């Protein structure tokens, strides 16, 4: 990043101007983020079932009750399973495809790249709908294709294990584009000199990858991992459109379970408490990955 020199001695007129310029944004963020969050914190320490009217008694044990809730534990397990699966698969597939697309001797690279980037900006809801159409047990094209080659035709979203696998596959279909784009941008900005030096030293393709590409790409890969992990921990849309958390509760993620406690059971206190627990999980996981990143850099 280009560092611009600061105005050396800021006249007080400019200092007030600077404050006036940030004021609308700061006030805006107070209104739309901080105030609602503080209110949610307040609600999370109260009993409040919306259908029973106004906010109820102060209740400091909401968090304890919620942490003992086996359904939240189930949702947490599903969320972690989903997050780890999609991040690992997307990084692996995305890095592989980015490496292929970075080879200048591959013709039509730009066409491939263009096609592979299409899913990235599609709304998650439409991605889920498309796959529901394709996977429909009676009307879907995928089961028809399977029947042609004599394979069994599962009811994809009705089986607990298959439903989770389906969500993972659809997420990989949707989000790998992002990894390809980011890692390819990283690859194209690697310095050529390192590769020339490696070539002079007689390094094989594998050695070049292991000793030049991988170490230089590590920071970019970690950034991509952090961004994807944060997003995957919040997964809601795909679950809503594909399975509604079912069959049973086998694909309920934390976000989806919170939504259910909030919007179906109308329990404001508990759902708010759970939302803060989810936030804590996200912050914790991000800090761990950032620590890994810092030690890797040293």
């Amino acid at each position: 990043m280009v560092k611009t020199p600061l105005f050396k001695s800021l006249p007080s007129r400019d200092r007030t101007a600077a404050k006036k310029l940030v004021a609308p944004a700061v006030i805006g963020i107070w209104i739309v983020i901080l105030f609602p969050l503080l209110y949610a914190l307040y609600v999370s320490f109260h009993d409040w079932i919306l259908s029973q009217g106004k906010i109820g008694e102060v209740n400091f044990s909401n968090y304890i009750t919620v942490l003992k809730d086996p359904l939240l534990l189930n949702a947490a397990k599903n969320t972690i399973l989903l997050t780890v699966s999609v991040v690992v698969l997307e990084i692996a597939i995305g890095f592989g495809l980015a490496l292929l697309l970075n080879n200048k001797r591959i013709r039509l690279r730009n066409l491939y790249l263009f096609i592979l980037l299409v899913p990235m900006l599609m709304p998650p809801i439409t991605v889920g709908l498309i796959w529901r159409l394709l996977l429909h047990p009676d009307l879907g094209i995928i089961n028809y294709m399977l029947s042609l080659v004599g394979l069994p035709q599962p009811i994809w979203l009705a089986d607990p294990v298959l439903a989770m696998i389906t969500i993972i596959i659809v997420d990989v279909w949707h989000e790998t584009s992002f990894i390809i784009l980011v890692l390819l941008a990283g690859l194209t900005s690697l310095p050529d000199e390192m590769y020339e030096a490696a070539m002079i030293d007689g390094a094989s393709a594998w050695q070049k990858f292991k000793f030049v590409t991988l170490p230089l790409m590590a920071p970019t890969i970690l950034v991509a991992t952090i961004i994807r992990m944060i997003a995957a921990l919040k997964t809601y849309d795909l679950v809503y459109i594909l399975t509604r958390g079912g069959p049973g509760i086998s694909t309920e993620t934390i976000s989806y379970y919170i939504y259910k406690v909030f919007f179906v059971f109308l329990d404001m206190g508990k759902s708010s408490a759970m939302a803060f627990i989810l936030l804590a999980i996200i912050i914790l996981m991000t800090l761990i990955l950032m620590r890994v990143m810092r030690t890797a850099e040293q």
Partner: protein
Amino acid sequence: MLAKFRRNYGITISHIILIISSLAILLPILWVIRTSLANRLIAYKIPPVWFFKPTLDNYLTIFAKYPFQEYFVNSLVISGIASIVALIIGSLAAYSIARFKTGDPWLRLSMLSTQMLPPIALVIPIFLLMRVIQMWDTLPGLVLAYLSFNLPYTVWILIGFFQSIPVEIEEAAMIDGCSRLQALLRVIFPVALPGLLSAGVFNFILNWNEFLFALILTGRNTRTLPVAIASLWTQQGVNIGAVSAATVVTILPVVILTYVIQKSLVRNLTFGSVK
């Protein structure tokens, strides 16, 4: 000879992998486009009919039977206004932070940290508050909710843009007799325009795709496209053709807009952490 063979072998395998991956992306999308152009009879047929006369009936259905033009306009207005408001407020703040280090480093970092906030944590209190001030199911209500992610993003990404503009341009303008505000409006903003545009378009796309806020904060009056198509599935079973047509209508604007910002896509998507 052997080396050359091995090299070509590698290229061929690369092409095979890339072609398979491309087909995995393209075929589902093409299938939905195909279904959106089929009439009711053909859409449901398994084994599928491969060649048929395309019809626009499904598109007419979603606009005539369900008021998709209303949802489309709702999406357009809400996404557009939120991203413009975020751009105006956010660019001023970003300029101030970039030039004067206002509130450094806390203000800057707090913008980034909002990325970790799960939408469900915000939507609960926002829903409760909007019920009280009677902004539930109103356009301004959803616009305000969208500012919760548009605003921090805009500020954060534009700080980088303003920092990359040399101070000298501005100083020269001020020596020539511009006030700071004039320098900002006449010199800096025009130079920063590509950055402003790409941040605005990116916000628009985020808003257009957003589902959870829209699901909870909209009702009959303000339903947006993602909420409308999600409900299309449950109503009276599935009308495959209509769902497909609605999907195409929802995706199309995003694909077109992506062209506008393709150069800065990486920066936008990664919150500026990879350039």
